């Protein structure tokens, strides 16, 4: 499979009054055509910022992409002029946001919002775009799409709005969809349904997905490769199988232990990761996880960050695990 997106050494910082927040530090990841990868980590670890940086949707000021490359089909998106990056957004790289309740404009009908991308990127006429919008809505499972397309967002439930967001995301048949916690705000019963649907549609279109989530269950089911982020850095990466069954970084181990599992007795207690996520203005020296790590050793408190290959295609930044 050929590489669709290659993020190399990406760093995004936010300049605040208290100092520079290093939200993403030297993150690198790759997405092949039609592949689903997952970015995993707790809140504030830089998942969303790293994804928004790909299409340069970081508010500047205060945010700034300070280094790195984002090669998409061989062109560096970070070097494109503004006009050109706008043509990529929505048409080649689409996004699905976490909050379906606020991601749709409340004063515009679904029709107006759905036909926007079709008219901007695919040059459709009004009627043509309407027909396409109805077809897309039917595809994401909105019943009576012809009638519903004229409604305002407040007449839709959260799950249905997220379907609409998905329909909008696939409307220009993008090569990549960035799904930022697409099901976090949705009812548990709908989550699987929505993801299954998105997965099927994108498989048909051969669209790659960057799935941003903290739900490891979702990761195991859909993603081929997983990138675990902590404090703006990628601390472990490998195939979903490897990371899930043979986690090397103590942080990944902690993440997996903190999720309830159906295949274990219900009496087993969940193990939280103690402590708070680090201050990203002045992150700990050495491994950023060391203040919370149960296996911490002296060598963890200094030294540079690097990913070590512990098994074929399985990398971690943990030096202790690397020596096992």
């Amino acid at each position, binding site marked *: 499979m050929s590489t669709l997106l290659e993020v190399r050494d990406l760093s995004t910082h936010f300049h605040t009054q208290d100092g520079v927040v290093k939200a993403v530090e030297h993150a690198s990841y790759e997405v092949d055509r039609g592949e689903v990868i997952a970015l995993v980590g707790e809140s504030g670890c830089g998942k969303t910022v790293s994804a928004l940086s790909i*299409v340069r*949707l970081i508010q500047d*000021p205060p945010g700034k992409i300070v280094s790195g490359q984002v090669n998409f089909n061989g062109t560096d998106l970070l070097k494109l002029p503004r006009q050109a990056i*706008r*043509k*990529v*957004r*929505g*048409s080649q790289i*689409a*996004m699905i*946001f976490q*909050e379906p309740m*606020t*991601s*749709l*404009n*409340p*004063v*515009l*009908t679904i*029709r107006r919002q759905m036909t*926007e*991308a079709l008219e*901007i*990127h695919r040059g459709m006429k009004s009627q043509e775009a*309407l*027909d396409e919008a*109805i077809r897309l809505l039917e595809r994401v499972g909105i019943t009576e799409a*012809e*009638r519903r397309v*004229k409604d*305002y967002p*407040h007449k839709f439930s959260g799950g249905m709005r997220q379907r609409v*967001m998905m329909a*909008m995301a696939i409307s220009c048949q993008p090569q990549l969809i960035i799904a930022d916690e697409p099901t976090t705000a949705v009812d548990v019963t709908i989550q699987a349904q929505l993801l299954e649907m998105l997965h099927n549609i994108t498989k048909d279109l051969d669209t790659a997905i960057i799935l941003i989530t903290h739900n490891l269950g979702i990761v195991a089911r859909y993603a081929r490769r997983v990138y675990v982020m902590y404090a703006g850095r990628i601390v472990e990466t490998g195939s979903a199988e490897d990371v899930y069954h043979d986690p090397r970084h103590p942080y990944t181990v902690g993440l997996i232990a903190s999720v309830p599992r159906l295949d274990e007795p219900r009496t087993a207690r969940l193990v939280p990761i103690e402590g708070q996520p680090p201050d990203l203005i002045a992150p700990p020296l050495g491994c950023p996880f060391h203040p919370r790590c149960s296996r911490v050793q002296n060598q963890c408190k200094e030294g540079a960050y690097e990913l070590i290959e512990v098994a074929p295609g399985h990398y971690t930044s943990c030096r202790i695990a690397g020596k096992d």
Partner: protein
Amino acid sequence: MAIAAESARPHHTLWGDAFVRLRRNRLAVVGAVLIISLALASIIVPLISPYEFDEQNLNAVLEGPSHAHLLGTDGLGRDVFTRLFYGARTSLAVGIFVQLIVLAIGLPIGALAGYAGGRVDNLLMRFVDIVYAFPDLLLIILIRAILGGSIYMIFLAIGLVAWVNVARLVRGQILTLKQRDFATAARAMGGSGPYITVRHLLPNSLGPIIVLITFGIPRAIFAEAALSYIGIGVKPPTPSWGTMIYNGYQNIFGAPYLVVFPAIAVGILMLAFTFLGDGLRDALDPRERR
């Protein structure tokens, strides 16, 4: 099938839907009817009144309301009824045209400042501050002195002072709205800054803007009245409610109706615009369900 459904249902646009909702709001309809009938009355008043607005009858000065003069006569023996409706022309025109000027200046400046941010925002807002800090009346008088005397110049002078409130409001609205998720979503979809501002952000701020505008109309009417009082407003004998009130003021003890009738007229018009403004605000918010 899609085409059949399309033609069977009324077209749903922001304004179309708003109109449907507005019609269900009784107070707003009352306000709109009042404003429209006043406008119509001011147009047809020459047909229904036997008097001219500047026709003096010095044998019948300061007469109270009677069959001949429904609302009495003023100090020069002019028919108050006729003058009141001619005055409505001036007042309505001042109110509406001033707000059009206010919108034409305030909306783009506020939107630009809000969306562009940074240095552009700073520059524009400091300019707004300067205009705002200047005493209104003084500025209007200054602009009047430069622009000259026609009634359109009065509109322009009041408008050039009053736009700052709208500019500030629009800027504030755009500033908060552009942080909302749907604005980010629209950017992620490939919309440009101006496109997002016009298509997504401004429609979301229409409600407060319209309310401010409707409250601005009576304020403009009062501003015109004040100007007329100090002699740089509408030139006599053209009547405006402001001139009528201030002229009547001289005889307030002998002929209080000279103040009362135009004051009631101003009050009713203000109320009508307020009802209509409130109704429009609700109607333009699709989340409002009735």
